[in-house]
């Protein structure tokens, strides 16, 4: 087959090349050159991705595996280094490279104050990040996915700790890394179980086998739960979500990249990819849905009281990811992937907008010190506004369609899910417009110097904002629900082959149109009132004082970090101290030193035999011979 599909390896290859050039030549490249290289390679990947995407839209297209080389072939286990191109991976390719490119472009301007070798290092990491993510979505088996999975973990560590001279940032990076490792352990165990059960890691071999198993098989539940543990780590779900808000330590475009295009969507992708396993494990699905919902609510409540512009966005990401997991949990795989896509657009937009604000404010991130920026930063303001509406879920902006699809499915599965989900959506609308109001409305609350320097960002930053704003508006139209027009849900149609096994396994339950209209009306009314309330409440008198009571609990993130610190970190630390003081000192050291001392002592005693007297040596030799003879005669 001679088509662009065979060239799919180019997609991850370009970022890898960019990484190598920028990484190795960071001391020699000028800033503009490394910026151009870093962005161009992603653009090239994007172009290839678009071509591939075009191929996959064809009616006759079937999932294609591109074998690159033999990777592991041992003891009956054969794992090739292969890429799988199908609708799901093509869609993710498009999102990753597209949004990734915009973020790269944005970064060339945002990071311009860095020294040139740090600048090149930044782009090298960024390229490696994109490369890992592409590997993750392109892999034709779980092992390649795992390589990418670990790769994004590494890159997130590198990028969150990009300003490594700041200890706190370094700690945040370490936290992200450790949290991810915990999740990865689950993922890895899941892989081992898959090998044990199916004898392969290749999707095209595992899934058909799995489809033949009966629903609720315990091994499937174990596998899916372990994989889900991995997903909670990577996609920041309870209980492993705390790293994501701390990941704000990295440069703002990195946050955008982590939150929108890469990394956090890995968990969603993985579950969407293994949809058949999850569909056949209803117990896990309930766990996924509940965890997703709990995360969505918890993160939303925290976001209400955060004052750091990036923290608000971070918790909103955690919350939106919760929605995606809710979608996955109730079997709305298309909805989850749809939400990943729309979320990628508006969350990237919001982060880049926040970056633009931070840039203008000279690295001030506290929204209590902002306000009234609407006039100074018109482009940022309007694009940010678009992002807020999109995430709040007002039609016809993209967030509405995807979130609505998930919520409708949730209602079909269990109305309680819907009610809680709706509450989360209300909070989302509320805190996003609180953020918007406090940032752009009212009067400026910063220093005079900051006010003097307020300015709109250069074109490298505003152009991505405008493009993303455009996408955030229109992206929803690929998934218009059946409610409004028959067969208008192009995305569902497009992704159908990927989720075919799952849709075959369960009978679809359709809501009556009447119910859907009611749900829609209720949610829209509530969301609109939440927005208006937030705008009214915070435009004129923003809360700048100290918080009390319940608000303080929220502002302190429900004290989850403290809880983790007290019940996990501290006992582990004391355990470590205990082991160091007692087990290590007296036990292991004692043993090791004791062996050494014993050898020394016996050596000292034995040394007396080495008198240097030739006569005594001969005597011992004769005695030895005698003994040998005696033994031979007596016992042999």
């Amino acid at each position, binding site marked *: 087959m001679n088509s662009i599909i065979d060239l799919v390896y180019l997609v991850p290859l370009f970022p890898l090349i960019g990484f190598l050039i920028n990484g190795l030549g960071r001391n020699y490249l000028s800033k503009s050159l490394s910026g151009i290289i870093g962005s161009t390679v992603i653009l090239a990947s994007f172009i290839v991705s678009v071509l591939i995407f075009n191929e996959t839209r064809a009616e006759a297209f079937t999932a294609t595996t591109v074998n690159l080389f033999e990777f592991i072939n041992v003891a009956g286990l054969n794992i090739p280094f292969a890429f799988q191109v199908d609708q799901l991976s093509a869609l993710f390719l498009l999102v990753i490279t597209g949004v990734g490119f915009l973020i790269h472009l944005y970064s060339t301007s945002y990071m311009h104050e860095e020294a040139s070798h740090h600048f090149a290092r930044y782009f090298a990491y960024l390229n490696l990040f994109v490369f890992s993510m592409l590997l993750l979505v392109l892999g034709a088996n779980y092992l390649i996915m795992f390589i990418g999975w670990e790769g994004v973990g590494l890159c997130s560590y590198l990028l969150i700790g990009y300003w490594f001279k700041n200890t706190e940032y370094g700690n945040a990076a370490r936290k992200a890394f450790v949290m991810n490792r915990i999740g990865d352990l689950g993922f890895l165990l899941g892989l081992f179980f898959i090998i044990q059960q199916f004898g392969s890691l290749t999707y095209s071999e595992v899934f058909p086998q799995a489809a033949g198993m009966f629903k609720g098989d315990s091994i499937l539940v174990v596998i899916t739960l372990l994989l889900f543990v991995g997903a909670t780590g990577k996609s920041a779900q309870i209980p492993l979500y705390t790293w994501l808000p701390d990941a704000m330590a990295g440069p703002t475009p990195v946050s955008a990249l982590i939150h929108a295009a890469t990394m956090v969507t890995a968990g969603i992708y993985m579950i969407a990819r293994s949809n058949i396993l999850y569909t056949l494990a209803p117990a896990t699905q309930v766990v996924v849905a509940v965890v997703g919902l709990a995360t969505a609510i918890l993160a939303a409540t925290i976001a209400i009281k955060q004052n750091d512009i990036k923290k608000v966005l971070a918790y909103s990401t955690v919350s939106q990811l919760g929605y995606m997991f809710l979608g996955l949990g109730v079997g709305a795989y298309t909805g989850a992937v749809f939400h990943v896509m729309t979320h990628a657009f508006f969350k990237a937009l919001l982060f880049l907008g926040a970056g633009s604000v931070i840039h203008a404010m000279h690295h001030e991130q506290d929204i209590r010190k902002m306000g009234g920026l609407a006039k100074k930063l018109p482009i940022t303001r309007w694009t940010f506004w678009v992002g807020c509406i999109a995430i709040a879920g007002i039609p016809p902006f993209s967030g509405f369609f995807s979130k609505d699809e998930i919520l409708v499915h949730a209602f079909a599965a269990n109305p309680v899910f819907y009610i809680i989900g709706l509450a989360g959506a209300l909070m989302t609308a509320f805190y996003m417009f609180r953020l918007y109001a406090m940032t752009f409305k009212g009067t400026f609350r910063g220093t005079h110097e900051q006010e003097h320097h307020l300015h709109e960002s250069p074109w490298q930053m505003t152009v991505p904002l405008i493009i993303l704003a455009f996408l955030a508006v229109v992206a929803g139209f690929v998934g218009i629900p059946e409610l409004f027009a028959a067969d208008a849900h192009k995305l569902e149609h497009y992704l159908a082959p990927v989720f075919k096994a799952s849709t075959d396994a369960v009978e679809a339950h359709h809501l009556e149109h009447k119910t859907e209209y009611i749900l829609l009306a209720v949610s829209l009314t509530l969301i609109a009132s939440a927005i208006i309330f937030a705008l009214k409440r915070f435009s004129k008198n923003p809360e700048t004082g100290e918080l009390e009571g319940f608000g303080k609990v929220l502002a302190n993130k429900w004290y989850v970090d403290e809880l983790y610190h007290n019940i996990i970190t501290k006992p582990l630390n004391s355990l470590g101290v205990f082991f160091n003081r007692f087990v290590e000192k007296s036990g292991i050291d004692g043993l090791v030193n004791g062996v050494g001392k014993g050898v020394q002592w016996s050596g000292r005693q034995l040394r007396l035999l*080495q*008198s*240097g*007297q*030739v*006569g005594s040596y*001969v*005597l011992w030799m*004769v005695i030895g011979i005698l003994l040998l003879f005696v033994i031979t005669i007596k016992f042999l």
Partner: protein
Amino acid sequence: MPINYYIYLAVALFSIGVAGVLTRRNAIIIFMCVELMLNAVNLLLVAFSKMHAQTALAANPSAITGVEAQLFVFFIMVVAAAEVSVGLAIIVMMYRNIHSVDVNFLNRLKH
């Protein structure tokens, strides 16, 4: 003569040699004791070379057996001669250095 007489004789000579090595301190005497032990072994080898000659001669009067054993003894003598020349040279040098042939002065191996 039965072969065991020769064995006993050789063992006696060999053991006297060993006892000599153990009891004397004079390097030259020790060396001579070593030569004695070598000769005990040589004697045994020659005796063994004749051990099976009788049966072979009974079958065929012109049979020749045990040549290899005697050649072996010959080569042992060759090596012994070479060994003695070098060994005595070493003893001479030792005497020249420490003015004694007492092996107890040779306890430098200790250090």
